[in-house]
């Protein structure tokens, strides 16, 4: 189906569940009520249920009782290198398609805005204007993933249906995806063997705090520039991704205990992350 919410060309979307449309967030420029074209060609209106810029997904609810049945899903066993696929788009009146294969399956990929996606599909096919947000289907015509050419800045990717489902559930439930945030910028640094031995630390690195956002949980919690983060919630930290993973594991409103090294002394500080998703 097509979504008419930006200049130049409409964008593609897919009926994910009955009455619910999913598309790529960057292609939907308008807020409020959005005009869409249903698979049969008839016009309808939809409202935004929520968007998540980190995975570049947007969820729309179709207004009224227009018939909009969800497409069948492919099973996850098709998420393999070499699977023949069609990328389907509807950048306007007609449906167009592009044929290719799943080129690679990336494990544990992180988008540049920090969302972690267990598996991401890299595609060997041509993605045309307006294809982002449209479905990637397998040889039986079942939906495998949602195409996106913006997440990796131009190279065609697709987010598997399982990952999309998780985001859609959260967006339908609370209108945003929870992203715990404490407000620090960090840089990985090596820890001297002597220091590690002195404090009986496992691993040989930590995260140096290089900036703290104003009024952030980190500032309120008393984190200082130059502190060395060693553990968060019991997890050893050696890469910035480790901190994001540890924060994602926290529950809303719950504190996370941070083990830090300040001036050669070990300290433990508890901080309650805020939800950055809500502010977006």
């Amino acid at each position, binding site marked *: 189906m097509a979504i008419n919410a930006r200049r130049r060309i409409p964008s593609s979307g897919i009926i994910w569940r009955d009455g619910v449309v999913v598309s790529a967030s960057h292609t939907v420029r308008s807020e409020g009520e959005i005009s869409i074209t249903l698979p049969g060609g008839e016009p309808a209106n939809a409202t935004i249920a929520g968007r998540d810029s980190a995975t570049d997904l947007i969820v729309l609810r179709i207004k009224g009782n227009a018939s909009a049945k969800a497409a069948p899903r492919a099973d996850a066993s*098709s998420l*393999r*290198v*070499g*699977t*023949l696929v069609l990328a389907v788009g509807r950048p306007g009146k007609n449906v167009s398609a592009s044929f*290719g*294969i*799943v*080129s*690679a399956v*990336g494990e544990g990929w992180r988008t540049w805005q920090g969302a972690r996606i267990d598996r991401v599909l*890299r595609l*060997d096919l041509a993605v045309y204007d307006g294809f982002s947000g449209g479905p990637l289907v*397998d*040889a*039986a*015509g079942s939906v495998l993933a949602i195409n996106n050419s913006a997440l990796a800045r131009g*190279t065609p990717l697709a987010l598997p249906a399982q990952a999309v489902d998780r985001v859609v559930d959260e967006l339908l439930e609370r209108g945003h995806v929870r992203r715990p945030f404490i407000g620090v910028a960090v840089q990985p640094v090596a820890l001297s063997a002597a220091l590690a031995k002195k404090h009986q630390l496992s691993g040989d690195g930590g995260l140096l705090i290089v900036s703290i956002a104003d009024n952030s949980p980190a500032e309120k919690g008393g984190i200082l520039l130059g502190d060395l983060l060693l553990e968060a919630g019991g997890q050893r930290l050696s890469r910035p991704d480790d901190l994001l993973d540890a924060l994602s594991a926290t529950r809303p409103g719950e504190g996370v205990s941070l083990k830090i090294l300040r001036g050669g002394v070990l300290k433990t500080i508890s901080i309650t992350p805020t939800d950055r998703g809500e502010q977006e």
Partner: protein
Amino acid sequence: MNASLFGSARAASSNLNGLAELLREAVVEVRSGDVGSGTGIIWGGAGLIVTNAHCVRRGSSVEVDANGKWREARALAYHPKHDLALIAAPSVSGPMLELRDPESLRAGELVFAHGHPLGVRDALAMGVIHTVARDRSKSPRWVVADVRLAPGNSGGPLVDAEGRLVGINSMVVNGLGVAIPSTLVHQFVERALSQRAA
């Protein structure tokens, strides 16, 4: 009719999943000096690997990565004109791809390129044979295919739909992938090994 069409497309698709797995076993990543990284093809059982000459810097150390572990390797022979290099990494093993005679290739035949384009490990790309370019003696000199290659694909295999080695991906010219025919690669390895033995 649709059901049978879907059935054959599904069968083709699952064959390609198998092809991707075979290729993943048969290739390594090659790193040397400051020339970035390329792909290498396991050749026989003795830890030999063939890659592009431009992926192996002369005088620099060579490392290969098979199954996520970097190991020391050593350059044995170069053929700059054909952009081929033979390296030895004794601890690396894997299946050797069957060879496909480029003489029997026809324009439009489906082919696949495997490699690590732009650092993405084990990526597969699909295309068709564009042409087989020949030298003055009319023997195959380049296999040209309409397949998307990027830096990192260099030295990787171009195979047919049965997984037989058509050539070694070497460069991109006017958007088309250009590979060194498997016949030239075979000759190069045979010559290099006989010279070492002599």
